[in-house]
């Protein structure tokens, strides 16, 4: 059976709302409009306006309200129409949500989920394409999840809603419409994935490729191409960026001795940098080649289609980097 990521998210929300009356959904256009990207379709009808709340376009206000409601024991799911707009509310995510349990020595836990599409979409320009994975994942007190497939979307969103801590849940607009096979287990309403565990999407022995969100699909495509050229790539779907599954990553690199990190966000202080450093710290002696980092280009997102394509990783970038790591010669192109 196949399911789109959109339906996976929608069904996860639906099931958790039906299982726990404390769960409610709040955000712009989540109700009558059925969600800007239709993730919340049908939920207003089913759960009514007390539990599916359309807000004004005031992120600081409604996010603060969500966090306050979580202090009091409710389990809010806050939708950002896109995560770019979370910057208007970021103080509440960091200072009001992430730090409260610690500052209060455990008195004020904050069971809240912040979710919405993150990172680059298509043709939406510099202000609507920012990936916030590394920012949020740098902050102790938060958990940061990045689903790729429908299985991920269902299992991780349900885990996020059930979790007693603030979770930043980074979706990807371009994946919403993608279909993935799902097992009966995944479709069961009890299904849940563990937070903090990466998934090996494809086993391999020559090179490890880490990726999250949309880039997992690219990494898998790259792995197929590499396989044809005799390189066996292991693809790790990180699933959680914080807490990062250092042990799965290191175990893989200790086997393959080579590492490629892939992300769509900006490179500096990014997810790849952390993964590289974790491996250097824990498995330095196992590395047979420099770690290769594939990332968004270090520029604001341009609109023009040809530049945009250059600004985000392509499958061929991953393939090329993997070959380099495996010391297969790759012709050097001219600098742009």
């Amino acid at each position, binding site marked *: 059976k196949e399911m789109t990521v959109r339906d996976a998210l929608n069904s996860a929300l639906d099931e958790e709302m039906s299982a726990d009356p404390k769960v409610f959904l709040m955000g712009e256009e989540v109700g009558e409009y059925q969600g800007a990207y239709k993730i919340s379709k049908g939920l207003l009808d089913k759960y009514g306006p007390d539990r599916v709340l359309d807000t004004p376009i005031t992120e600081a206000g409604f996010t603060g309200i969500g966090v306050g409601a979580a202090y009091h024991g409710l389990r809010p799911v806050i939708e950002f129409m896109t995560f770019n707009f979370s910057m208007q509310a970021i103080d509440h995510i960091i200072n009001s949500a992430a730090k409260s349990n610690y500052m209060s020595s455990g008195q004020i836990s904050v069971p809240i989920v912040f979710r919405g599409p993150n990172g680059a979409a298509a043709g939406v320009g510099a202000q609507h394409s920012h990936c916030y994975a590394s920012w949020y994942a740098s902050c102790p007190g938060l958990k940061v999840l990045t689903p790729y497939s429908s299985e991920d979307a269902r299992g991780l969103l349900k885990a996020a809603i059930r979790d007693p801590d603030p979770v930043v849940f980074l979706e990807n607009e371009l994946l919403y419409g993608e279909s993935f096979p799902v097992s009966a287990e995944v479709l069961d309403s009890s299904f849940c994935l563990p937070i903090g565990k990466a998934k090996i999407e494809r086993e391999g022995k020559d090179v490890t490729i880490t990726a999250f969100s949309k880039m997992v699909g690219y990494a898998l495509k790259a792995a197929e191409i590499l396989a044809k050229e005799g390189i066996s790539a292991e693809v790790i779907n990180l699933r959680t960026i914080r807490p990062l599954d250092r042990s799965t990553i290191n175990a893989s690199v200790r086997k393959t001795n080579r590492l490629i990190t892939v992300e769509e966000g900006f490179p500096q202080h990014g997810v790849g940098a952390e993964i590289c450093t974790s491996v250097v710290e824990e498995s330095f002696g196992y590395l047979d080649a420099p770690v290769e980092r594939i990332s968004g280009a270090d520029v604001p997102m341009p609109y023009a289609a040809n*530049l945009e394509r250059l600004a985000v990783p392509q499958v061929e970038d991953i393939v090329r980097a993997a070959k380099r790591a495996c010391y297969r010669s790759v012709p050097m192109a001219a600098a742009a």
Partner: protein
Amino acid sequence: DTRTLTIETSVPFTSHKCESPSRSVDTTPSELLSFFRDMATMRRMEIAADSLYKAKLIRGFCHLYDGQEAVAVGMESAITKKDSIITAYRDHCTFLGRGGTLLEVFSELMGRIHGCSKGKGGSMHFYKKDSGFYGGHGIVGAQIPLGCGLAFAQKYKKDGTVTFALYGDGAANQGQLFEALNISALWDLPAILVCENNHYGMGTAEWRAAKSPSYYKRGDYVPGLKVDGMDALAVKQACKFAKEHALKNGPIILEMDTYRYHGHSMSDPGSTYRTRDEISGVRQERDPIERIRKLILSHDLATEKELKDTEKEVRKLVDDAIAQAKESPMPEPHELFTNVYAKGYGVEAFGADRKEVRAVLP
């Protein structure tokens, strides 16, 4: 033809903590004719953008302004290009009003180098600094403090100019509006906050998003005017009044009662949260172009045929601009790395695969 005509606005202004300007607006035949032509151009341009979007020549978000044209043309007729304007993402017509060209619009929409941002900005990020247009901003509400900052600079430089910061009814609930308004009022900045109230923020009707949808009273302590934003002459009158006020007394709010015919953006059919009757009612009774057409005809300033000809001309100009824009090249790949900084120090910047693509920042 520059003889003075005096025309009554359709409805009175409603004022808050200030006098109302007179309902009798001075204009001229040539002004009315240019209103007609400019609005017809804007309308045609937006309709064409709709088609280009559907033909997949425009990507991403695309927010159309048809229905709201009277705000752009009325405002321009009251001010000069030394005054500044800043708006949100629904910026094509505002840009045109500032003197931007159709070629620049369509090229930008298609991501080509003849675009006003050389294809790097896209639909939401038009600019024309040389005639005081500061964008084209994608984050709801952000342009309000930015606009007050432009006004701050105008006052600092003792320019005698003002800034019009345009935002929607949805944006009017943003906290940064209140913060910027308070500071502007404390410092008497020549800032005019223009709420283009098209009655919906995406799919949310104004009353569902605002406990008090009297946007011209926002903050309470700042004067405001409610204006028929479908009447270019009323807009002109209000903007004149506001400019004078702002130079003397600091900020003022103009709420423009207007309407967008299209959905919010191309992904919104625009018909789930409002009735077709509502839309066609506005089209029939309040359309800004038709209002001017009627005025022109009733004052015998042109014939129906002449106005139809203008529309045809405009159509051709739009089609020509599109054809030209289609010929405009995509940006060169090296443009990926230009303009990250005004001064790049020759530092290296990286592409997706840094061992393959890197560039020295100019």
